[in-house]
């Protein structure tokens, strides 16, 4: 049974009275400026966008369905694959949601390390945005600079998790293991030089007249539209809506950190560029505070039936071996209930809705990802603008197709 209602967009009538002048063209799904596989159906009048219709789903892998067949702890590696540019935020959001269901709290040191790593992950995500956005606009050089620093961050991720991109480092109840001994020094070395690197990017772009002309006044989004269309994160704050979950609804110990939330009231692509550049500097401040105040202690919660024991204990203590065996083969039961946990990820508000029926497998996992909602605002931002501006706007809202399609 095929259930399709509504008119497929390509067969839809063009705007009334303009059938001879308007043209429908296809952009993507194989297009370098769509950052993945996004297909846009555009109705254009000459070079002017009349309507724009995003067609998504090319990367749909049914991750939500897969989650229902896994134990709770086996879902963590799936979350990395959804937004591969900001992996640790996904891990964090899922772990916080399940911890809320369990009534379990990660130890203090795990919370601080989580904040530190999530901020590194945010820098990682913003660096990719900056490099690819500038490259779309024609400033090819910046990409080489931002990927130089991204490489440093990926090395830090590798040091701590053993993986460069698919980190899966956070566990329900803490972290998978202690970070290596020199890890904090390496982060400190990175943070010491990184603000100069931000200046370097700004030098290449802020004074660049081509870059400025392509972004200023392009893709305007009003604060009311940002809220109505579900836009979150830097694009929302660049439209003048002052809300950041890290500051306003703190999670994972964010209430202990001092940072500013950059806001702009201009609402165009340039404002989004400026907001993200300031966010990079604020992330550096948060990481510095995390390094200075890093508490001592364990990185795993004391919950032997939920958190896997250390390897050494597992090999020497009978009880630990039993717990290890039980967790790996049978998982752990989570009390029935439903929770929604939202966090501020690099692209905007990520949320995990986890429903438990009291068994060891989640009954339902739903992910709210910012790009999915932000994409709905694309038409509003592009209508009446030139075709070439679509590329600038897509770059400026920083979407990841992996998290749209899931």
């Amino acid at each position: 049974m095929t259930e399709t209602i509504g008119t497929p967009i390509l067969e839809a009538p063009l705007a009334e009275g303009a059938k001879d002048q308007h043209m429908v063209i296809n952009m993507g799904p194989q297009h370098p400026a769509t950052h993945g596989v996004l297909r846009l159906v555009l109705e254009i009048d000459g070079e002017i966008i009349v309507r724009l219709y995003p067609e998504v789903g090319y990367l749909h892998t049914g991750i939500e369905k897969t989650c229902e067949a896994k134990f709770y702890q086996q879902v963590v590696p799936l979350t990395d694959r959804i937004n591969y540019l900001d992996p640790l935020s996904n891990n964090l959001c899922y772990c916080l949601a399940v911890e809320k269901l369990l009534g379990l709290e990660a130890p203090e040191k795990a919370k601080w390390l989580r904040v530190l790593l999530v901020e590194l992950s945010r820098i990682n995500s913003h660096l990719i945005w900056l490099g690819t956005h500038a490259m779309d606009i024609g400033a090819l050089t910046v990409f080489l600079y931002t990927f130089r620093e991204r490489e440093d961050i990926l090395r830090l991720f590798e040091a701590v998790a053993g993986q460069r991109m698919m980190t899966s480092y956070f566990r329900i109840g803490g972290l998978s293991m202690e970070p290596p001994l020199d890890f904090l020094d390496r982060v400190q070395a990175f943070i010491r030089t990184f603000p100069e690197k931000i200046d370097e990017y700004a030098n290449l772009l802020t004074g660049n007249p081509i870059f400025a002309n392509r972004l200023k006044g392009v893709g305007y989004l009003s604060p009311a539209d940002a809220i109505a269309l579900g836009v979150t994160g830097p694009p929302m704050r660049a439209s003048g809506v002052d809300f950041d979950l890290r500051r306003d609804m703190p999670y994972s110990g964010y209430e202990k950190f001092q940072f500013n939330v950059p806001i702009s009231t201009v609402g165009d692509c340039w404002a989004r560029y400026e907001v993200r550049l300031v966010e990079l500097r604020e992330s550096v401040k948060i990481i510095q505070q995390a390094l200075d105040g890093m508490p001592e202690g364990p990185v795993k919660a004391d919950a032997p039936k939920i958190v896997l024991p250390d390897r050494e204990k597992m090999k020497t203590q009978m009880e630990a071996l039993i717990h290890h065996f039980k967790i790996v083969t049978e998982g752990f039961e989570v009390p029935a209930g439903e929770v929604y946990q939202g966090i501020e990820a690099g692209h905007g508000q990520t949320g995990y809705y986890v429903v438990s029926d009291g068994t060891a497998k989640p009954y339902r996992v739903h992910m709210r990802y910012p790009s999915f909602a932000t994409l709905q605002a694309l038409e509003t931002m592009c209508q009446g603008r030139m075709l070439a501006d679509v590329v600038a706007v897509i770059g400026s809202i920083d979407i990841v197709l992996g998290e749209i399609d899931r």
Partner: protein
Amino acid sequence: MTQSPTIAGKAAVLEAMPGHPAIKAVLAWNSGALTDAKFDRNELTLTIASEQIRAAAAAVQAAGYNFFEDMTAVDWFPSAPRFQLSYHILSHAFKEHIRLRVLVDEANPSVASITRVWPSANYYEREVFDLFGIRFEGHPNLRRIMMPDDWVGHPLRKDYPVEGYR
């Protein structure tokens, strides 16, 4: 994380948190439409009669819950009513989430679309239509969003096998 105790049932929640802005708004609008309520793990869930969801959404929106954050469904197969829709609404002013919950029967599952209240619900309702087969009356463009247009079945239903039909 200090967790407050669970408060279950409409009467108990109304008694425990009479000043809550969302509860006040729903009661002032139509107290009969609120069929159940629960406060669990610091999250407030208000169950709304399914034919009233659009008006309920408008009522909480007017009360300051200005941001539609997320909407999805849960399939409670084989119990009845089979589907649960969960709307997560955020208030920038109160810095708080609420969950509106709607129960939908298996036979001809259909509820009113809230896209007129929050246009951002558009893609979310399409997703639920695609993956659960629940229709949203008044939706401007209710087409499949993830699966191909000619796909058969609704993958997130519990009677749809994880590995698909072979």
